C-alpha cells in the first residue's frame, strides 16, 4: 500500500468523524436542504472529470470525461440553486402580533 493511499485513509477517517459530529447537529427542520447541499458539495467530483477532459489521454477517457463534467456540473448548479431557494423560505414568526 502506498503512503498516498494510507494518507487518504487517515483523511477519510477524520472527515467521517467530523461529518458525524456536524450532521448530528443539523436541525431536522433543514434535513431536506441539507441533503441537496451535500449533493452539491459531492459534485466536487467534477474536478476529476475536468482533468480527464483537459488531459485528453485517450478518446475514451475524453468522451467519458465530458459526460461526467456535464452530470456533475448540473448537480453543482442545480444543488446550490435549490438549496438557496429552500432556505430563503424559512422565516421566523413576525415579532409584531396584532
Amino acid at each position: 500500500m502506498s503512503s498516498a493511499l494510507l494518507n487518504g485513509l487517515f483523511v477519510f477517517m477524520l472527515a467521517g468523524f467530523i461529518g458525524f459530529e456536524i450532521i448530528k447537529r443539523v436541525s431536522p427542520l433543514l434535513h431536506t436542504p441539507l441533503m441537496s447541499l451535500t449533493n452539491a458539495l459531492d459534485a466536487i467530483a467534477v474536478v476529476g472529470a475536468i482533468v480527464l477532459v483537459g488531459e485528453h489521454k485517450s478518446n475514451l477517457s475524453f468522451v467519458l470525461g465530458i459526460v461526467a463534467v456535464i452530470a456533475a456540473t448540473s448537480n453543482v448548479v442545480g444543488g446550490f440553486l435549490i438549496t438557496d431557494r429552500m432556505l430563503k423560505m424559512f422565516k421566523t414568526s413576525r415579532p409584531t402580533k396584532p
Partner: protein
Amino acid sequence: MTELAGNQLLLEVVYLIASALFILSLKWMSSPRTARHGIWAGELGMLLAIGGTLLHHGIVDYKWIVIALVIGSGIGVPLGFVHMTAVPQRTALSHAFGALCVTLVGTAEFYLRTPNVAPFMMAVLSMEVILGSLTFTGSLMAAGKLQEVLPQRPITYKGQNLVNLFFLSVAVGLAVYLVLHPGARQVFPVMVVIPLIFGVLMIIPIGGADMPTVISLLNSYAGLSAAAMGFVLDSKLLIIAGALDGSSGFILSVIMSKAMNRSFTNVLFGAFGQVQVKAAGSTEEQTVRSATAEEAAGILAAANRVVIVPGYGMAVAQAQHKVRELFDALTKRGVDVRFAIHPVAGRMPGHMNVLLAEADIPYDKLIEMDDINGDFPQTDVALVIGANDVTNPAARTDQSSPIFGMPILDVEKARTVMVIKRGMSPGFAGIDNPLYYFDHTLMLFGDAKAFVNSIVHELAGNSH
C-alpha cells in the same frame, strides 16, 4: 514527501481552503439563521476548487471543458427551479447524476491505468465503480417511482433477496478477480453492468412510504462512491466531500429507519417494503362521529391551543396554502397554533418542513415529534390533515399491529381530535386506525383543501 512544483502546491492549498469551506458550509446548516452562509461558503469552495483545477498543468484542451460546463449548467438551472413537492425526485435524480460522474471517471481511469494497478488501488477503483453504478440505476428508479412514471407499488417475488445477493456477490467476486489480475480488461464491463442491474432490482421491492429511507441510503452510497474516487485520484478534497456526504446520508437513513421502526440491518441490506401487510380484518362496524366545517370552526375558535398534524396527504391535496390561511385566522383570534412534524411526514427527510415553509408558515411553529408529544395533553384541539399511520395509537398499544413500535404523534391525548379525511379507507400501510373511533375524535370528511377552506370561511364569518 516529494517537493511539489509551485503550481501544484498552489492547487493543493486551494483544495485545502475549499475543504475547510465545505466543512463550514455544513456546520452553518445547524440553524436556519446561519444556513444561508453555509451555501455561500459551499459555493465559494466550489468556485475555488474548479477555478484552481482549470490551472492544472496537465490540461491541454479547454474548449470541451467549457462546453461541458455550459451544458451541465443548462441542465442544472431548471433542476434548481422545480416545485417543492418535486424536491424528492429531483434529489434522487441528482444522486443519479453524481453517481454517473463517479462511475464514468472510474471507468476512464481503469482503461488509462491497467495493467499497472496496485492491488489496493484496484480494490478502491472497483468499489468506486460498483457503488457508483448501483447508485446510478437505483436513484433513477427511485426518481421514477417518486415522479410516478414507475409503479409505486412494491414488486416482490419469491427468493428476491437471494437473487439480489447473487448479483451483488458476482460483482464483488469480479472485483476480487480484478485485484488479482489487473490486466483482465474484459472483466471490467461485466463489473459495471451487474451493479447497474442490481440497482434496479434493489429498488423494485420498495414502496412509496419507504422512500425517505431509500433516498437517504442512496445519498450515503453516492457519497461513499465519491470518496472512493478521491482515493483513486489521490484527491483529499474529494475524499473529504465524499466522507461528509456519506456520513450525512448514513445519519439520515438511521433517523428515517428509526422513525419507521425498521431495524438497522433492514436498512443496510435494502430490504425495505418486505412487510406485506393486510388489514387484520376486524369487520365489525364501529361508529365514528363526524362534524361539519361550521362545527369544526366553532371548536377551533373556542380553543386556546391547537396543534396541526400535517401528513403527505395534505401536500397531495395542495392544501398547505389554505392551512396557512387557517393558521393566520386562528392566530389572529389569539389561538396558539403549532405544527407537529413526524420525521417521515413527507417523501424525504425534512420534506414537510420545506412544504410548510414555502406556504409562509414560520419555522418556529414547526415542532419535531419528540418536542411536541409531551404537549398533547394540554392541547385543546389536534387537527390531523392528510396524516394517518403516524397518528395510529395501535403503534403504541397493539402488539399485533404491523406498525407496533413505530414512534407516533400522541394526538389522541388532546382534548379533541379532528381528522380531515376523504373517507374511511385505511392509510398507506393498509392498517386500520383506532384513533377514528374514539369518543373525542371528530371526522371531517372531504378534500383537505376544500375542507380547510370552508373552516377558514366559517371563521371569517364568525368574526363579524
